[in-house]
């Protein structure tokens, strides 16, 4: 097992240097100001939202050009801390006879009262920092340009995570802005080992992507593997959502099961970092990716860990719900069509009475009802909340009640579909629930043709497929296959905080010990 993980995680070829952004043409800075302005203008494409502000330094005749994008800059701080000191600059105070280079250096170190500034000797990079909201200063005769952070990017307020609501726990979620998300993580994890590695992907969108991990904890091979796979995002034209990154870095693109979990919750992301995982934040998306992901993560929710015994109870419930959501309609088909002897007689009697006038075999009946349910669900998601009400009325009354009265389907089938639907709502991860919905139809077809044997065939094929999956070198079904009894406890149950003194060994963290032993609370012995 150990050897295997080592082998798998080890990169195929030795890494020399990982490019962290898309390739770009070398554009050296020309000496004269006119040339600089011209080249800069060409690079930003003479777009109307880019402003070229010419002004004189202090009361001298040294001309400076400030380039910035309208709407992306914070004008107050730009005016107060950048333009004001420069325009009131008094050359004589510093030195008597100075060249532009000395003026430039003095400006940089004494006059611009903004924290983050950067120097570039490449105009292409400078033009990109303009497009990210920086103000770029062009000087005559200096072979560098100055990029000053005056960003004030349009953004949403920190909001409740809409897709992952929990009863108890922090109620703030990630937003679309990378810096805000990084701050949310840093605020929860005040530790020097928390590392953000940013890189850019998408030749057009030039999206910033951050790889986050705890240096002293995560297995470096996992980070290495993440870096290696993240190279792929450089060569695409756009990264609009973390889902696009997910598709480019997952292990098995043909699997129906999601192999990378995503979360909107900073507290969940931090918990995953602390187990030795890597978080990937994509600028412009509130959904951060968690790698490596294991199968059982999808039936866990953050508030399992925040409420006392509740977590264990609800986890068992979810495992049951998972199986119901996948197999119940198929079981109904198989039992009523092929194995009626297995149903206790009294139940069989009422099923058959109810099915009396139904013209279809159970399989067709089930496909129809499940199909209608999928239609309703999909209709409900896209509609505005006000009209969404109407969909449920149509679904419940017209399709449910009327279909039974019209003898189109039997009441038992409606019960089965309803239980299945409710069970699938118990799965906290939406992407995982989608794969269940798709697979359910496959299992139903097998059950309709081969009966219970078909269900077993489906189960074994799924199990085999799951056992073969890996997420970033970690077996997807761990700790179940390969079996690790000690860690399996925490899959079906949620162990109390004082029990979990070790991190999951599946991820091979550098620091295995999570906390001291013997934290179990005890009443005073006095």
């Amino acid at each position, binding site marked *: *097992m150990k050897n295997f993980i080592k082998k798998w995680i080890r990169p195929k070829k030795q890494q020399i240097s990982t490019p962290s952004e898309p390739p770009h043409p070398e554009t050296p800075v020309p000496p004269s100001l006119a040339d600089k302005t011209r080249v800069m203008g060409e690079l930003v494409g003479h777009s109307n939202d880019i402003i070229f502000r010419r002004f004189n330094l202090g009361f001298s005749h040294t001309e400076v050009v400030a380039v910035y994008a309208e709407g992306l800059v914070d004008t107050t701080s730009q005016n107060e801390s950048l333009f004001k000191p420069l325009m009131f600059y008094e050359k004589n105070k510093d030195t008597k006879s100075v060249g532009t280079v000395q003026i430039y250096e003095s400006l940089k170190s004494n006059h611009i009262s903004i924290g983050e500034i950067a120097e570039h000797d490449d105009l292409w990079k400078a033009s990109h920092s303009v497009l990210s909201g920086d103000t770029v200063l062009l000087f005559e005769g200096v072979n560098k340009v100055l990029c000053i952070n005056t960003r004030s990017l349009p953004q949403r307020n920190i909001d409740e995570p809409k897709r992952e609501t929990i009863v108890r726990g922090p109620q703030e979620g990630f937003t679309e802005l990378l810096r805000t998300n990084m701050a949310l993580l840093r605020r929860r994890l005040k530790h020097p080992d928390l590392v953000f590695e940013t890189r850019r992907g998408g030749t057009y969108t030039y999206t910033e992507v951050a790889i986050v991990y705890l240096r002293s904890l995560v297995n470096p091979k996992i980070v290495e593997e993440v870096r290696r796979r993240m190279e792929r995002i450089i060569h695409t034209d756009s990264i609009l959502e973390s889902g696009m990154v997910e598709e480019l870095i997952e292990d098995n693109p043909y699997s129906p099961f999601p192999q990378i979990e995503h979360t909107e919750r900073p507290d969940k992301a931090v918990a995953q970092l602390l187990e030795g995982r890597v978080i990937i934040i994509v600028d412009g998306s509130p959904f951060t990716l968690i790698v490596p992901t294991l199968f059982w993560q999808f039936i866990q929710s953050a508030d399992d860990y925040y409420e006392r015994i509740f977590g264990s109870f609800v986890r068992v419930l979810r495992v049951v719900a998972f199986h119901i959501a996948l197999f119940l309609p198929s079981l109904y088909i198989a039992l009523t069509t092929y194995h009626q*002897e297995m149903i*206790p007689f009294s139940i069989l009697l009422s099923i058959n009475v109810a099915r009396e006038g139904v013209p279809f075999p159970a399989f067709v009946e089930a496909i129809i009802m499940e199909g209608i349910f999928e239609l309703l669900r999909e209709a409900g998601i896209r509609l505005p909340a006000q009209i969404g009400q109407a969909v449920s009325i149509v679904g419940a009354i017209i399709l449910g009640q009327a279909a039974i009265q019209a003898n189109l389907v039997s009441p038992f089938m409606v019960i089965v579909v309803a239980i299945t639907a409710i069970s699938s709502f118990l799965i906290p991860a939406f992407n995982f629930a989608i794969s269940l919905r798709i697979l359910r139809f496959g299992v139903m077809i097998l059950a309709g043709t081969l009966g*219970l044997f078909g269900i077993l065939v489906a*189960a*074994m094929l799924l199990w085999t497929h799951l056992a*073969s999956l890996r997420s970033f070198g970690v077996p997807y079904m761990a700790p179940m296959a390969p*079996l690790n009894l000690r860690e399996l406890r925490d899959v079906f149950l949620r162990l109390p905080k004082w029990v979990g003194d070790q991190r999951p060994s599946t991820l091979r963290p550098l620091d295995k010990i999570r906390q001291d032993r013997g934290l179990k609370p005890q009443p005073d012995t006095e």
Partner: protein
Amino acid sequence: MTIEKINTWQATALLTMSIIPTAILFPPAVLAELAGRDAWLAFLLAGVLGLLLAGFIIILSSAYPEYNLLQIGEAVMGPFFGKMITLAYVFFFIIVSAIVVREFSAFMVSSFMQFTPLEILSGVIVTMAMYAIYLGLEVICRVSEIVFIVVMTSLLFFVVLSIPELDLRSILPVVDSGMQPVFNGSIVFFVWTGEIFFLSMLYPYLNRPAQAWQAAVITVSVVTIFMVISVFITESYFGFQLTSRILFPLLAYVRLIGIGFWERIEALVILIWVAGMYIKISFFIYMAVVAVKQLFGLSQYRPLILPMGSLVFILSVIMFENTIEISVFLRDVWPFFAPLYALIFPLLFYLTHLVKSLKS
């Protein structure tokens, strides 16, 4: 392609799952016929023989820890005889896979899905096995871990449920008609316990070869103990004469079990058994494929899966006329054929190895 590694527990699960599923089909009836009341003793004796064989196989494999049985054969016997014996093993693995597939579909047709053509069942299970083999030995092992737990739990459950039926008087008097029937019976079941020689096919993949004996001992013991108990149960319930006349005595017994209002739960037991059968068939066809790969010195086995699966499927359909024929074949022919591969060839390898090492 990385080298696959399996741990001791996975090897145990895989080997147990490659013996038990068919062991519970025909042997109880066949042994009850051959050894009568002493069938349990015959099972026990076969278990002891299996343990001895396992010890020998581990000695042989640990002499060549990097090689599986066929590679050992080719290394020891030289290129010509080595390839000949590998060819023989290819045939053995193909035939044994076909027999197992046929046992599976014959059982399913006769007891569970009477109206389904045999070919469908064979085809489905072989297709599933091909998928598992495509994913590799490691995946088969991981699947077998869970299947092992499920199968063993259900078997244990079944044993516990039948404790009230146990009647030890059914095995008295012991060795009434001499040891000869017991030996006859144990030779038949040695085919199953002798399947522990597959350990030598797994040996190079074990991550802790020093623990191979644990896997072997646990496997053979579990199989033997379970078979002894099950023959106790069926003979207590039906008596040995009736047991020998029922084709699948254990199934006949399971049919009678009911839990409260819920009767006819044998379908569940059969389904669990199918899961075990899936592992067994996957592993057997896997070994056939590996043997062919070995024979022609190929670098990978994946292109062979489809032809091998088709071959096994066709063979499984045309090999026997009916289910009784399988039972007779397993009683009269197979016990004198299988030990050639389980025992004689490995013994030959080992003796040659000894002679060679004495020379040098």
